[in-house]
């Protein structure tokens, strides 16, 4: 424990514990905003890297956000649940991503009316690029790679490459055949 930043990291991880069910060795760099009365479950060794911009976790009444083990969440990411958002183990959520399970406004008709929520699921070993957007009903399959800036609104099969607005799905060029327990290369976040 050498720098002041490390001390702050510990303090923030402790403050997170006051609010959520948290696993072991969770680290928080920078500011983490949590609001709403819902339930929040965070696995082991999760990293909230909010050094560039704060991370927002919004759990509405009766909603659940559950984050698996070894997940990395980049700065500026905003995760807003009105029903349920599940993130599997070993996922990487790029910077400034947005994950919502409710549109908050109706597309047609009365705009101040809130539409129905549709749960969002991110399975294990998914990599979301920076600025990707997951809208209600997104279900990203295991090992999928989402290219930065993509928008996903529906089911994405496992081991695919999703790119574009709205996302075009292709099978991943090389399916992830390595040992799934091996940590992912985190050098290109």
């Amino acid at each position: 424990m050498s720098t002041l930043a490390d001390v702050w990291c510990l303090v923030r991880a402790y403050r997170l514990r006051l609010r959520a069910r948290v696993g072991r060795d969770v680290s928080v760099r920078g500011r983490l905003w949590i609001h709403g009365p819902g339930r929040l479950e965070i696995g082991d060794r999760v990293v909230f890297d909010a050094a560039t911009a704060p991370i927002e976790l919004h759990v509405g009444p009766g909603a659940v956000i559950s984050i698996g083990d070894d997940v990395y969440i980049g700065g500026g990411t905003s995760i807003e649940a009105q029903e349920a958002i599940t993130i599997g183990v070993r996922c990487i959520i790029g910077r400034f991503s947005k994950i919502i399970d409710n549109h908050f406004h109706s597309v047609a008709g009365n705009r101040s009316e809130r539409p129905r929520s549709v749960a969002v699921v991110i399975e294990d070993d998914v990599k979301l690029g920076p600025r990707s957007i997951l809208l209600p009903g997104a279900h990203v399959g295991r090992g999928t790679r989402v290219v930065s800036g993509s928008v996903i609104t529906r089911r994405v099969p496992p081991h695919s490459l999703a790119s574009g607005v709205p996302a075009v799905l292709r099978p991943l060029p090389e399916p992830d055949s390595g040992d799934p327990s091996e940590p992912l290369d985190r050098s290109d976040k």
Partner: protein
Amino acid sequence: MSLFGRLNRDARFVFDRVRSNRRPPLRLQAMARLRALALFRGCRSGEAVYAYGPVHVVAEGEVTLGARVFFLGGMIPTEIKCFAGGELSIGAQSGFNYGGSIEAHRQVKIGSRCMIGSMVTICDHTADGQAPIVIGDDVWIAHGATIQPGAIVGNGSVVSAGSVVSGEVPPFSLALGNPARALKLDLVRGRNSR
């Protein structure tokens, strides 16, 4: 609770309230009113403009704000920039979520009762040149959309999340994709409007 924690809580409280169409408490409204008065001094602004969170304002050109325009706070400050010789006008009761960036080098017009989502970029200037942007009334621009120079968004249209709009979007349509295509709003009524 620390001062920062308290400010954060207040900012998000407002956010939830405004989203569910309820009024924030009077104390926060008063703070927002004062902040807006300080930020938009020297601009032509209508009555009761609210800034619930941090807004970076550059008002070298002509900025006109309608009545009851509001800026929500959030993780990232909103930027409102109008450079020398530019003209930026925002209609009454339009609302801005956090992290947006609006830049007017020549002309940007935003209509009344618009909802501008978080991280939306509206800029009328690129390396290739400048062209005015016109956004009609009752337009909803969702999270992360980019409005490029020369874009014209018709009344009542919706620009979906992450879209890039550079041409014309007819009234009452849904613009979707990069580059954005427009669909009639009547046709998409079924899926997400319940």
